């Protein structure tokens, strides 16, 4: 008989150990202790998010919580059902045995839910305050303070997981970035950044996405399943298109880039001391944020990235933002990364995504 047991529960002390927030329809239900968000796949309706606690059964019969994670379901672009496990949070003492027990349960549940793939999202590097969103799921932990298990790839490799993506986030000070940009970029007048509605942004991205160097996204089946969509809906004024005008007045301007940025909701999470920040929209409207994260972007050619960033700094200065984070850069986007480093950005967050098929 296993000395470990799994339970579908979100213990109250996870708020202390790994502060987090949700986006999506559950923002109003979570305080009631229920999660209602679901996905439809085939003929099944399945819970989108499930919290899991692994408990150890002690010799006296009492249970001690050991480790926690969320599992998050999505449908990938091959119409496969994927279970994404968030980086496990330490509650008690976590050893290899406990992690193996957790993974065994994960795969058992994946089998019950008829998932084809299990993925795990690991915070491989955290150097500083990582802005919201910090996950590809709809749950963002404050990864700087979260008491998470060590990102021990060996255990996951032993369990048959293989890396399939590595994604990075970079940070800079807004005024330093602006100062460091070439004068020609700062003084040019042929590029214009226009705010667009989220729906138009998504259509544009869908139309242009393939032709651009762009941010990493989970490959979901359709846009309506996109976690990004949930994030975008938080603030109406978050989506922008970069257009270049022709010097020949009769030619239409062309779209050469786009970005979507969001204020760091983990800041009010700390100061308001609640995971339910999105219930307090009026307070958020008046909140003075320090950091904004560009979480979705595309540019062509890649050399225009400094111009895109310059325009982003103009937007951020209007909102009194002091720090800019540029996220969802795949590790193999070397030109993008080199440009960022040249501009003075620092790497602050790296996420590894691993996957294994369910037998």
């Amino acid at each position, binding site marked *: 008989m296993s000395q470990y047991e799994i339970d*579908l*529960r*979100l*213990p*109250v*002390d*996870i*708020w*202390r150990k790994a502060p987090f927030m949700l986006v999506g329809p559950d923002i*109003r*239900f*979570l*305080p*009631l*202790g*229920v*999660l*209602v968000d*679901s996905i439809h796949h085939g003929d099944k*309706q399945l*819970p989108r*998010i*499930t*919290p899991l606690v692994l408990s150890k059964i002690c010799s006296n019969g009492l*249970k001690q*919580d050991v480790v926690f994670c969320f599992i998050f379901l999505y449908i990938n672009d091959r119409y496969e059902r994927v279970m994404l496990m968030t980086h496990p949070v330490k509650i008690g003492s976590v050893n290899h045995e406990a992690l193996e027990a957790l993974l065994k349960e994960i795969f058992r549940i994946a089998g019950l839910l008829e998932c084809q793939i299990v993925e795990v999202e690991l915070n491989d590097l955290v150097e500083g305050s990582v802005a919201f969103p910090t996950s590809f799921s709809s749950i963002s932990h404050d990864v700087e303070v979260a008491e998470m298990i060590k990102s021990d790839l060996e255990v996951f490799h032993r369990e048959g997981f293989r890396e399939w993506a590595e994604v990075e986030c970079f940070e800079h000070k807004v005024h330093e970035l602006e100062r460091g940009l070439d004068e020609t970029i700062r003084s040019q007048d042929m590029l214009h950044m226009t705010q667009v509605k989220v729906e138009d942004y998504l259509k544009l991205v869908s139309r242009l996405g393939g032709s651009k160097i762009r941010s990493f996204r989970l490959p979901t089946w359709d846009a309506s399943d996109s976690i990004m969509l949930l994030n975008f809906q938080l603030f109406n004024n978050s989506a922008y298109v970069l257009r270049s005008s022709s010097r020949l007045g009769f030619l239409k301007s062309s779209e050469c880039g786009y970005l979507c940025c969001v204020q760091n909701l983990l800041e009010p999470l700390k100061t*308001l*001391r*609640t*995971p*339910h*920040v999105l*219930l*307090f929209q*009026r*307070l958020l409207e008046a909140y003075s944020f320090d950091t904004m994260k560009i979480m979705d972007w595309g540019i062509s050619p890649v050399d225009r990235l400094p111009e895109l960033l310059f325009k982003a700094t103009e937007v951020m200065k209007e909102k009194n933002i002091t720090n800019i984070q540029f996220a969802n850069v795949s590790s193999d986007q070397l030109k993008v990364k080199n440009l960022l480093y040249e501009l003075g950005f620092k790497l602050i967050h790296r996420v590894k995504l691993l996957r294994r098929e369910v037998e």
Partner: protein
Amino acid sequence: MPLGTLALADFLDRHGYSTRIIHTGIEQLQNRSFKIEDIFKEYSPTVVGIDLHWFVHSYDAVRIAETVKEYSSAKVVLGGFTASYFAEEILSRFNSVDAVIKGDAEEPLIQFMRERDRDLQEVPNLVYKEENIIKKSEKRFIADEAFLSKLDYTRFELLLNCENYFRLTTQTGDLDPQPWKVRVKRHAWVPMGRGCSVNCSYCGGGLDAQCLITGRDKPIFHPKEKVVETLRRFMEMRIDSTYMDFDPYRDRRHHLELFEMIRKEKIDISSEFLLWSPSNRGFITEFAKTFNPLYSSLVISPESGSEEVRQKNKGFCYDNKTLFDWLNDAKRESVPVKVFFSSGLSWETKENFNETIKLGKTILENYPVIEMVSNPLVMEPASKRYLNPEMFGVKLKWKSFMDYYGRFKRLAEGIPEDSRIGYETSWESEREIIENSIRFNKMVSST
């Protein structure tokens, strides 16, 4: 399950009487083919206690009593507010019930176990049958604060399938097994006190009802140390959230001292706290400092949007400005709220209820509301309206225990009921009262 059931079971157990609590609703959820008679294949009780605290259990309690008598030789004792109020009628109508303990039951139940084959007159608060004659003990027991400090509400191991109890009960105490909802917290109730200091027209637990049923003429608190100890045990049992519903005085020093003690003991738990009237901002600040915010919320029941109707029906009255001041404070302190309303209040017209809808909509649009609902008031035995219907403009449809029993029997058997709420008022018919709440709840879901 009434909160006191756990303490009763523990009290019996500590006095040497082997005791188990069986929640028949949870057993049926666990096993669809569960039948009450199955219990007697495993247990041979000498006494079966059945709670009839809430009138909604009127039929089920008697049905269980009848099953007990059919499958065992146990004595059957009922307790709880509804049983207490209708004790004589229940005993005269149903041979399956041997006795009813009126009011506080802990000490009387021990005495009953000792005296059940001897002299039942020695058992305080007891109403019983002796050779088909209904008799009442002259002895009285009313728990005081010192006695409350002896009670333990944490012996969940005495409840069969207690793990399911934590998960399957909602905040309102109902069983709510909707599979599409992932229930992610373990929840329990913490006793804070007994009694009330005011009379709301519709409440069967107000000051006068308490005097009538239990003999208690003022509220008493559970000692703070005991509440803290209970919460600590809850935390050790991995209970995430607790419901607190005892707020008999506007002066909340007792609660503030309790909150300070909870913080000092570093107890990490969420709380859903039901306020009987709006608090000041200081209370909300202390509440937010004390409890884990993950599942914490504050609850208030203005009942009506009309200040005039509220003033005529609620014991703790407040105007809408006071309510909005409180809501603003909750918002500033980042505490989510639940707000509850009712239809069917005395002196309430359709126009008054439209004020309720308007108030509800304003609150929903401007404040961090996680739950808002209106329910038609159901006639509660021993409430002011029940005892003085003419004074409150009420025409009773349910007057006796048999009226309540009949209503819930028909519900169980799938027979259309004559009345769903047990009354109508001089201002609105039963149908109108029910429709008002339907209109309100439609507004909530469309906002």
